[in-house]
């Protein structure tokens, strides 16, 4: 099958639509007015306000830490479980498999409330620990379903071929199975990071006195309305991630040219 330029059209259209509202948000971070219904002229005042607000930057740090930790934890737990599920003989394993997916189905607000009640029953100290447990619980389903789907479509002959060629179990696992699973693990981890990074309802319930996350800072501006400094923060984060990816691409290219 040859690559045709035509087949780029649809993905490009979808990508543009994905970014349209985000670009609007970025543009309005430079709006002088606090209201988005009125353009009062170009201004950097929201950026100035953002950098004066330590607590928002701290919350951003917490959110990143929480998102990464819970998606990594969930990835380890879910991937190994998905791999072992077929052969394992643990009792009730099918039920546990379904149980692990339930946090997806329970409405966040109820999940948050029962987590709060359950954690205080266990006497766990509210803070980063409880946040990580709760987030890992709702991250596992994303990774598990992705990896299970991948295992369903996996070409087992390659693994067997490797074993036939004398590769040990561990070698076969690391050189054949894991690379084949990695797109699924990446997709799942990414979805979990995204859900964790965006979660507010569960987080508010399970966090303690000293840990705020970014979404908490955004959603609790109920009494006074959303400040455009959040727009400013998101614009910066978007710019930084695009910059980092571009940089990684360039480094890779230079690397390839050298070798």
């Amino acid at each position: 099958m040859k690559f045709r330029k035509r087949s780029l059209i649809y993905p490009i259209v979808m990508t543009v639509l994905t970014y349209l509202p985000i670009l609007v948000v970025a543009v309005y971070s430079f709006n002088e007015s606090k209201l988005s219904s009125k353009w009062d002229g170009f201004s950097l005042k929201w950026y100035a306000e953002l950098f004066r607000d330590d607590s928002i930057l701290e919350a951003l740090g917490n959110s990143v830490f929480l998102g990464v930790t819970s998606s990594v934890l969930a990835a380890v737990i879910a991937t190994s479980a998905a791999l072992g599920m077929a052969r394992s003989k643990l009792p009730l394993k099918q039920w546990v498999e379904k149980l692990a997916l339930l946090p997806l189905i329970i409405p966040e607000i109820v999940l948050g409330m029962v987590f709060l009640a359950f954690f205080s029953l266990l006497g766990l100290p509210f803070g980063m620990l409880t946040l990580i447990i709760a987030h890992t619980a709702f991250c596992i389903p994303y990774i598990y379903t992705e990896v299970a789907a991948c295992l369903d479509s996996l070409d087992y002959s390659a693994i067997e071929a490797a074993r036939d060629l004398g590769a040990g179990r561990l070698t076969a696992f690391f050189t054949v199975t894991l690379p084949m699973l990695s797109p699924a693990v990446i997709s799942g981890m990414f979805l979990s990071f995204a859900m964790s990074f965006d979660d507010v309802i569960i987080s508010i319930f399970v966090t303690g006195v000293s840990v705020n996350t970014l979404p908490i800072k955004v959603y609790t501006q109920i009494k006074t309305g959303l400040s455009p400094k959040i727009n400013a923060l998101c614009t910066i984060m978007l710019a930084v991630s695009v910059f980092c990816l571009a940089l990684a691409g360039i480094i890779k290219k230079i690397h390839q040219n050298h070798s």
Partner: protein
Amino acid sequence: MKKLALILAALMAAGTLTSCGGGAGENGTLNLFTWEGMFPEEVLTEFEETTGIDINYVNFDYDETMLMKLQAANGGDYDLIIADDYIIETAIAEGLVQKLDKSKIPSIGNVNPLYQGQFYDPTDEYTVPYGAGVQTIVYNPANVGIDITGYADLWDASLADSVGIISNYRVINGMALKVLGKSYNTTETADIAAAGAKLNELAPNIRLIKDDYIQDDLVSGEINAAVMYTSQVTMAKLTDPSLEVVYPKEGIGFGIMAMFVPSKAPNADAAHKFIEFILDPERGAKCYEYLGYYCTATASEPYITEEYREFLTLPAEFSKDNMEMIENITPEADDAHIAAWSEFKGLCE
């Protein structure tokens, strides 16, 4: 996979770097639990600098979440909480609030008596108000053919598909109750059902029901009239001065936000210092302008700038006699409210 690991490591490093900001101040920490954006940044910084107490600003979304967290903490963990009136009544009843030590708050006299002695704290032993909201109608006279003077006018057929309301059933059902000449706090389920039926007639006029950014929709022309919260009124008027603000003739409903110290606050002393700090007339004025709610400290009123004064201070004719607060009611009455409200929302297509 390697690239992913690299990205993760970089994110982690960034995360830990920025999250290391905290640390207790030399005179301890004040755990302040309230909504985001309740104080201007410079006031918080000034407090930290003058007292050496570090402010740890923690947020909740709903009053109910706050109460559940406070219950889970047994009245501990948090030093100072700012929340809405009705939830404070419950918190006090559950023994989660401590009496204020008035000797540590010499400026307590700065508070406007209109906002004191209310149902949630009749003897003012537990709370100091911080901002009040009055339910008002705002409309755009350029697009509205009638003179709106009260809630009943929102039912006018000329306003079809052009009214916005906030998403709080006690306020909106209460509006219908007021039109029928009842109290916000009636516990007669028949009255509430009648209000629901009245409200259903309003459905064709409703374009949107929401709490956030309703002022944007009024400014952009999406809707022509709205029932909204005070801070939204302030923002709308500052953006478009031609908008009309109406104190409904059926009666004024209002709510108060107040500060209280939880029963087992780890640093109650810092909490009292903060209350005193905010009661300073000039500083208070700065806070209320930032907040956009009615100023609850009489002493601060003279310091409020001309631009803001009409939005943050109540006209003189208002007194406790013609204003009513939304109070906690019986579960049966609450059920009747929410059933009426759900039915009404279903009718607004």
